[in-house]
Structure formats: structure tokens, C-alpha cells
């Protein structure tokens, strides 16, 4: 019987050459030099860019909410006003996508800390999503970015729900995981919000319900505020015509959820992406960390609009190599990263959205069933 996973992973193995310790060090210093060069160039242009993003977020939110409000009232009298509601929901969704992806995510990585603008400051920024920024800074900035794709350390591998890699243990309930994935996609902001609670531990009795409640409090406050804003305050502004506004907000949040889910899954769960064992991070050198980031991430090729709407996570590889460089720089440095990869015999994983997202779903379906771990090319040559 042929194993499609094995086949593609075999190809990946051939694409990636194990590096000798000396090569690994050289690889690391080349990337360090690239990073230092870009960091020294940051200035007025980057500041102008992020402020324009802020502007786009603010105006599109006002336009979206305004259209929903006016559209809801008009719709009450004249059913042909529905396009205003659709446009309003789309604009609000767009605003939330821009805010979450290109503004919030990037600012929280400290990409714009060098500007010293308190409103664009990584440690204090609070984004327009159910989860708290503080929780995100722990699970994402620290755990996910430091231990990218390391089993048992990076909770983003399948979000504790999905078996994406054959290295994860198979259980019978995984059979239905395409269904779980679809639900996770629709409610992605809630998945992200509760990720740090690790509900599973409470069910398994490895954490008390009291501890869980304490951990839930800050998240509950933030989520309550978000629910209040989108599903009570803004709908009630339209008075008796609240329902279309509420549905519009639900749709806007839903669009944002599906989009962020898709982009994030494309970043680490495509065919040739690898996972690593726990021991790979013991006394890890900088070069080794870079190599792990490269092999654990995948890009999306496409238009400028795709890059901006994905918060430049379409350049997931560059983002994982340099998480604190302003994301608008990733497309500029991508050719150099690609050249470095080529010199060191490493595969630069990129493809169209359709191709990469197809591979993600391929993995979700394939590994719902038992699968064997394929041959992997080690990071370091023995």
C-alpha cells in the first residue's frame, strides 16, 4: 500500500540537507547579519506604514459599523437595503482582520517598539479579539515562537485537538477530526482565547477546577467586554432594528475567524513542514533554532493584498526567523532568505493559498486515521 504522506515527506527529506555544526553556525550568522541590516534601516517609512494600517483599521471599522447601523434601520422600512448590511459586515470583518493580523499580532511581537509610541507598544497593546493580549504573549510569543513545532512544548500543534503529524499519537476519536477542525475554524477566536486554560488538564484531574477558575477570570473579563461591545452595545444603538446589526457583527467575527484560522494553519501544517522531538531544544544554538524555524514554517505566495490581509504571515518563514522585525519588511528580505536556503540545501516551503490550504486539509483527513512516521532528514549531520 502506498502512503501518500511518506511519499511527500520523503521528498522533503531529500530537499533538506542535514547541516554540519560548522555549517549551522555559519547559517545562523548569515541570518543574524540580515536581521541586523534590516533593523538598522528601520525608520520613518516603517512608522508611516503602521500608522496607515491604524488609519485603515479605524476608518473601515467606522464605515462597517455605520453601514450596519444605517442599513439595519433602512432595512426595517425597505427590504432592498440589504446590500448595505452585507457591505457593512464585510467591512467590519475586514477591519477586524487588519487589526488582528497586520496591527495587533505584529505590534504585540514588539515589531514597532523601536518607535517608542505607547499606542504601538508590544507589551501593552490590547487587540480586538476575545482572548487577552497577555495570554497571547505567553502562548504565542513565548511558547510557540521559541519551541516552534516541538512536540509537547508548542501547543499550536493541532491546538490540542487535531492530529496533524504522524508523530502525534492516534486515538479513535481522531476519526472525526475534520469536523472538529471546521468548528475550530468558525470559532477560532474562542479557541485561541481558551488555549492557555488547557481544559484537558482539568478533565484529566491534573489541575483543580478552582485553579481553572482563577485562570479563567482575566479571560472572562476580556471576553465579556468583547461580547458586550459586539452583541449588545452596538446592536442596541440601532434600537428596535438591533437584530440585523447583531447578525452583521456575528458574520464579521465569523469571517475574521475563518480567515485567521486558514492563514495560521497554512503557516505550520502544510506537507513538508516538520515537527521536532523535545530533546532538539536542549542547549540549542542560534543556528539550530533558525533551522528549526525554517523547517517548521511554510509561506503563501500571492498578491500584495494577500500579504497585508494575512498580516504578512504569508511570509511565515521570515516571520519565524525574525519575529520582531516589522512584517512589511518580510517580502523585501524573502529573496535573500531564499538564497541562503538554497546555499545551505534547505527547502523554502511556499505555494499558492489554494495549494497550501489543500495540503493542510489533506493532513487533517489523512492523520484522522492511523499513520506511520516517515523518514525525516535530521537537522544536524551526525
Amino acid at each position, binding site marked *: 500500500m502506498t502512503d501518500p504522506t511518506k511519499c511527500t515527506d520523503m521528498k522533503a527529506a531529500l530537499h533538506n540537507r542535514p547541516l554540519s555544526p560548522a555549517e549551522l553556525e555559519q547559517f545562523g550568522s548569515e541570518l543574524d547579519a540580515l536581521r541586523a541590516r534590516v533593523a538598522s534601516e528601520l525608520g520613518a517609512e516603517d512608522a508611516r506604514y503602521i500608522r496607515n494600517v491604524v488609519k485603515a483599521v*479605524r476608518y473601515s471599522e467606522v464605515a462597517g459599523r455605520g453601514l450596519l447601523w444605517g442599513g439595519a434601520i433602512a432595512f426595517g422600512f425597505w427590504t432592498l437595503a440589504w446590500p448595505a448590511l452585507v457591505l457593512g459586515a464585510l467591512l467590519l470583518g475586514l477591519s477586524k482582520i487588519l487589526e488582528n493580523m497586520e496591527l495587533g499580532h505584529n505590534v504585540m511581537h514588539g515589531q514597532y517598539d523601536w518607535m517608542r509610541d505607547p499606542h504601538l507598544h508590544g507589551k501593552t497593546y490590547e487587540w480586538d479579539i476575545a482572548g487577552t493580549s497577555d495570554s497571547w504573549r505567553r502562548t504565542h510569543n513565548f511558547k510557540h515562537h521559541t519551541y516552534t513545532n516541538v512536540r509537547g512544548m508548542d501547543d499550536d500543534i493541532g491546538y490540542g485537538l487535531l492530529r496533524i503529524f504522524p508523530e502525534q499519537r492516534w486515538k479513535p476519536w481522531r476519526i472525526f477530526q475534520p469536523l472538529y477542525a471546521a468548528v475550530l475554524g468558525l470559532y477560532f477566536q474562542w479557541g485561541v482565547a481558551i488555549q492557555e486554560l488547557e481544559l484537558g488538564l482539568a478533565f484529566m484531574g491534573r489541575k483543580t477546577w478552582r485553579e481553572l477558575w482563577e485562570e479563567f477570570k482575566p479571560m472572562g473579563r476580556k471576553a465579556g467586554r468583547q461580547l458586550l461591545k459586539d452583541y449588545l452595545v452596538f446592536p442596541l444603538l440601532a434600537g428596535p432594528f438591533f437584530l440585523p446589526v447583531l447578525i452583521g457583527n456575528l458574520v464579521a467575527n465569523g469571517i475574521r475567524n475563518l480567515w485567521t484560522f486558514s492563514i495560521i494553519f497554512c503557516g505550520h501544517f502544510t506537507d513538508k513542514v516538520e515537527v521536532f522531538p523535545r530533546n532538539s531544544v536542549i542547549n540549542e544554538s542560534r543556528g539550530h533554532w533558525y533551522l528549526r524555524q525554517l523547517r517548521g514554517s511554510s509561506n503563501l505566495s500571492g498578491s500584495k493584498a494577500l500579504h497585508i490581509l494575512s498580516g504578512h504571515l504569508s511570509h511565515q518563514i521570515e516571520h519565524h526567523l525574525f519575529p520582531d522585525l516589522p512584517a512589511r519588511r518580510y517580502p523585501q528580505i524573502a529573496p535573500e532568505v531564499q538564497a541562503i536556503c538554497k546555499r545551505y540545501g534547505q527547502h523554502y516551503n511556499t505555494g499558492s493559498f489554494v495549494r497550501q490550504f489543500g495540503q493542510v486539509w489533506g493532513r487533517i483527513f489523512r492523520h484522522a486515521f492511523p499513520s506511520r512516521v516517515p523518514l525525516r532528514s535530521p537537522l544536524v549531520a551526525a
Partner: protein
Amino acid sequence: MSAVLRPLIPVDPTPRASGWRRWLAPVVSPPVVDFWLRKLNPVLSWDRPLARVVARSQESRDAVTLVLKPNRHFRGYVPGQHVNLTAELDGVRVTRSYSPTDVRQADGAFSITVKHIPGGRVSGLLCERTQVGDVLELGPGDAFGEMHLPREVPEKMLLLAAGSGITPLMSLVRQLSALGMPADTTLLYWTRQRDERCFTAELRAIAARHPHFRVRFLLTRDAPQKPDEAVGRIDSALLLRKAPDLAKRTVFACGPAGFVRAARELATDAPRFCGEAFTPAAMVQGDGGTVRVELRRSRKTLELASGMPLLAALEAEGLQPLYGCRRGICQTCACGKLAGVSRNLDTGELQAEPEQALRLCVSSARSDLVLDI
């Protein structure tokens, strides 16, 4: 007029809110509110002290006076104190301290006088490119500095100013003048040349109005022309001539570090001496020495090895700062740096500006530091 070394930026933990603003605070997102407020009026803000430049005039050959009208979040100053001023240069916000030169006017406005230092980026911005109508930020932190009148005004005072050091003292002179000159005051004001001098006409007018106030203008590179002008550097003979009753005078001195040091040594007989020097080029240590690191929030001061990553150095002292990746990725250990020079261990770059997010794990101290932890 110029940055001051000793008093550092005070910590301002949470923005203060009052009345209706406190009730609204839980649902308000300051960045969103500020964005729209600034469309209405660029000096409006939810919680940040901003000021609009309402007048600009040339004060001397190389100094400009800006009159600033702050919004309601500015908490004021006492004459003689300094305020932090933050402006944006090439996308980066840069902070310098300046001394207001007057007593706040009825509408809250006050003046600063900025000397254009050759090559100085902020002074260049303020002197050359700042126009009436522009908005600057006052902060971080409130006004600071000890060189102000004590609750009980001393009988006799001697004010020693060199160059830009005139600015906090001018504020005091204007305050004393407005109070009817309650102290017998002598001001000695040094500049190299006459055309560098600020406030000359006003100081002469105050001297004409108040018999208890004397001003002497000292020059080091110009010949004296008026009876109130003289030549010479600060020394004991000169002080003895201009202020024979030094032992009875409270002395305030402001100027370059060398000037303040000389003044302090000459004024040992004075009942009280208060001196403030401008920032000299920060003392940058090589790796190997020790530096004094003040942790403002924990109220601790430690001696740390200068070359070591700060995170490791703090841990070696038994402290446990928050950290995550320990390699400059995750920002968990980042904290505010209020003053001092740090070095980024990844790039080797020195950073002398205050920072909001100094990553302790990849930074070392290169001078004495004040951290906001």
C-alpha cells in the same frame, strides 16, 4: 534649555483618571479614542499630556523660545524644575528634558528656551523645524528637579548660571520678581559671547525695578561694554568681588558639569548649595567594570557587572525577573529603561535613549541604568 543629568524620569505607573473618565475607563480603548480625538484637535488625548506650540521667537543667536500650551493632563511644574519633552524624529520618539523659563500663565501656557546644539537632533528639530501649531508630548513622567524655592524663601540668594543653565534660574528670577523680590538676589550669568545670551533686556528691567536684585553678565570670549558686564571664568576672586557675603547666601548653580563642580567647591561656606549639571556624554563602560542599576519600582539599587546580559546579572543577584525564551524573541523580559546606556548584545549597538521595551536577556548595561521594574 538643555538636558539635565541628575534627576531621572519619574515612574508614572498608571494614567490618572477622574470623575466620568474613571467610569468610562473599562470600556474605552485609549488608542482608538486618541485617534479620533486628534482628528478633532491634535492636542486632545484621553490620558496623555500634549502641548501645542502657540508662539515662537528667537531668544539669542542660537536659542529659540517656544511657548507651549498644554492640555489638561499636564500636571504642572514648580519654577526651577524640568519637564520631559518627547518629539518624533524619523519615526522614533525621542525624549529630552528642558526647564520651563517662566511661571505658568493664567491659561496654563509656559515657555521653554532651546539652544541649538550643533548636531543635536532634538534641539535642531525644536529650533529649526517646529512651527506654531505643532504638537509635542510632555512626558514621560511629571516635572522633576530640586532646584526650586523652599517653602520659606531664604533671605539672600546667589544664582550662578552658565550658558543654557540660565533656563531654570530664569524661571526662579521671574517667580521672585512676580512675588516682589522677597530675597536679596544676585544672578551671575556666564556666556562665551554676548550674542549667545538670552533674556538680557528683561533681566536688566527686573534689576531696574527691584533694588534687591542684581545681575552681572560674565563673558569669556567677548570684551565687556556695559557696566553690568565683566570678563572672567568662575573663581574665588571673582565670586568674592561679586558676592562678598557668600557665606550668607543660598546658592543655586546650573550649567555644564565642570562649572557646577567648580561652583560647589567655591560655595562650601554657603548655608545651602543646590547644583544641577547638563547631561555630559554618558559614561560608557567597557565590559568588565561594574555599573549601578536602579530598579525603580522595586526600590532597589544593585551593582552589576557591565558586560553580562542584564537578565543573568539580575538573577545572579538573587532577583527573579519574568523571562521566557532568553534569546530576544518573546519579549517576556522586556521592561522600561528610564535612563542610561545599554548595549544590544545581538547587534552590539549602544542605546542611550529611554526605552519602553529593553529586552533584559539580550542587553547589557554600559552605564548606570534606571529600569522600570
